[in-house]
């Protein structure tokens, strides 16, 4: 019998990478945080990225609407009532002129008393950039008159035409975006608050809390949203100031939206609360609030963000519909729905179709949110 092999321990620290060497790509992949991986996934979804960029641009615009808009919200061009859109040209008679619009000639058709505008190809109105134009009050605080783009000094620039008071539709749509785009954000914030706390309580505590919440969710989900929105906003007191009405509407929009979110939170929590780390947290004396907010929710924040992105469009459409019906926001607040009130009758469609242009803004935003939300949903779980 030979001697037993002496017990040998290598004193050097063990480095697993000596056994399985990682290529730089692999290392980058394994070391990436969850959010980084979500971003990589999202980047592959080109439509979603494009939508995201459009949305960021639009939201950035709402911050500096006064500067971006060529006209002020209430500027009335009484000589140009119901003027059709003017398009921007670069070349006149084959020669480069820089961006300009052709002037409009107005005359009243005496037969049907219709205002008729004809494009005057001799009248070239050069656009001005970084210029002084209509004076405004920036966010109601700072007075100014600097614009990114203005019409020529005695000319006009109605990219989207004018309404019945001769106000520039393009500028009004820009101003309207400030309200229309934020309604969705405020609404979803409120709905998030309700959905996470109610769904969280239901999923974490289970038992009768869960049963009650489930029933309430079932009832709310089986009701048609719009009629209830209509009824609730009709109940807002007429004496309220516009700002209060705005918040009232966002709360109403959020109030019927939370069940979907609450249901998602609940089902996730039901599964996650059985995990060991959750029991550990409870045994160390963490309060239910802390366990839910610090230990459980971060597991599926990405899913929640994705579903929130998908429910914002419904809110924007809801606000538009309510305002259009005269039950939501009212002038002097300007939102896309308020602007669309002008296009309410069939005459507008037949004679002044550009009054429906706020719809294009709505469509772009809703589509962008849908695409972005789809992309986020696919990317939300990068480990799958």
């Amino acid at each position, binding site marked *: 019998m030979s001697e037993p092999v002496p017990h040998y321990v290598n004193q050097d620290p063990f480095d697993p990478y000596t056994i399985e060497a990682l290529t730089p790509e692999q290392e980058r992949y394994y070391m990436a945080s969850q959010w980084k991986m979500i971003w990589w996934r999202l980047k592959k979804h080109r439509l979603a990225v494009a939508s995201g960029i459009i949305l960021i641009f639009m939201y950035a615009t709402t911050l500096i609407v006064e500067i971006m808009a060529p006209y002020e919200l209430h500027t009335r061009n009484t000589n140009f009532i119901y003027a059709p859109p003017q398009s921007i040209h670069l070349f006149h008679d084959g020669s480069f002129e820089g961006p300009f619009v052709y002037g409009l000639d107005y005359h009243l058709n005496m037969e049907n008393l219709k205002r008729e505008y004809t494009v005057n190809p001799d009248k070239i109105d050069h656009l001005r950039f970084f210029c002084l134009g209509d004076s405004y009050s920036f966010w109601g605080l700072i007075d100014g008159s600097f614009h990114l783009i203005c019409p020529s000094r005695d000319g006009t620039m109605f990219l989207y035409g004018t309404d019945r008071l001769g106000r520039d539709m393009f500028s009004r749509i820009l101003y309207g975006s400030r309200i229309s785009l934020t309604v969705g954000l405020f609404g979803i914030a409120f709905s998030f608050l309700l959905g996470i706390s109610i769904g969280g309580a239901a999923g974490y505590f289970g038992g009768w809390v869960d049963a009650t919440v489930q*029933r309430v969710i*079932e009832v709310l989900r089986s*009701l*048609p949203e719009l009629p209830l929105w209509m009824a609730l906003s009709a109940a807002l007191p007429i004496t309220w100031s516009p700002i209060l009405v705005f918040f009232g509407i966002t709360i109403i929009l959020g109030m019927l939206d939370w069940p979907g979110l609450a249901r998602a939170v609940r089902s996730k929590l039901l599964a996650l609360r059985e995990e060991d780390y959750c029991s550990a947290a409870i045994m160390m004396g963490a309060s239910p609030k802390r366990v839910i907010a610090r230990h459980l929710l971060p597991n599926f924040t990405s899913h929640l963000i994705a579903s929130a992105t998908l429910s914002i*469009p419904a809110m924007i459409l809801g606000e538009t*519909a309510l305002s259009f*019906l005269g039950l939501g926001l009212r002038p002097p607040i300007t939102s896309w729905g308020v602007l669309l009130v002008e296009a309410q009758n069939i005459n507008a469609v037949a004679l002044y179709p550009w009054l429906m242009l706020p719809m294009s803004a709505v469509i772009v935003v809703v*589509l962008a949110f849908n695409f972005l939300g789809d992309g986020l949903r696919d990317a939300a779980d990068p480990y799958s």
Partner: protein
Amino acid sequence: MLDYLIRRTITMMFTLAATSVLIFIIIHLPPGDYLSTYIAELQSQGEMVDNEKIEFLRRQYGLDKSMPEQYFTWATGLLQGDLGYSFEYNLPVSEVVGDRLLLSMILNFTTIIFIYLVAFPIGVYSATHQYSWGDHGLTFIGFLGLATPNFLLALVMLYFANVWFGTSIGGLMDPQYLDQPWSIDKAWSVAAHLWVPVVVIGTSGTAGMIRRLRANLLDELQKQYVVTGRAKGLPPRKLLIKYPLRMALNPFVADIGNLLPQVVSGSVIVSAVMSLPTTGPMLLSALQSQDMYLAGSFLIFLAALTVVGMFVSDILLTILDPRIRLTGGVKR
């Protein structure tokens, strides 16, 4: 099955009861009741207030009683088919609404059928031709339908329906049939007018339906049994129709729970824009003038329409899918 039916009926009753409480609260949200507004209005015009009438109305609704009692009066009235009293029209609600409820039901029902008819072939095509140009194009059109506000689409369609087909603007039938008893001609006229609102309301629902059917069918198409069937030489069409389509059809019916509230919502605003003789425009005007009993009746009706519709779809589902029948639960 009977057990399930009973349990489902009880759930439905519970939902309806909860809904009625909710709606009762909503219609009492505006400060003051209609009577006080009404009296103030009459007095401001220097008119004598008809005390007898006010007393009658007060008694009718027990406006002097506590809220739970008022609710009880209102709810029992509803159960007996007494829809309440419209202050604006000075008539019982049931006389004001006329065929509106029936026409609303016809409109919503037709829209659902339309959505199924359109979404089904498109969904199947999109799933079987995944990532083809047709799939992308149809998906995009679907998204567009989802993103366009119903009411504007209604306006535009109304205009073009009039220009191209000469359909009279607004309404659900030619003017001469208004207030006429139902006849073949009248039904035909209704059908000729119905398609515009049906298409308009249907667009948004169709888009969602197509996407869900496509997703379901794609899931099924990747399963083993499809591969087995293909390996055994089943013709593609037979393979598709006989197995995966059936499986994918199931959520199609179950999905009516999402679809119905959406369709009812859409029909309200579209009929308000097109001034169809359905509940939509009247609900709107009732809300604007705070004629809350009239509004409440409509709200209850619309809610009941969706709740009962979902009940019917759940029952259908159990007939369709033995798994649900056996386990006694509804998967949604």
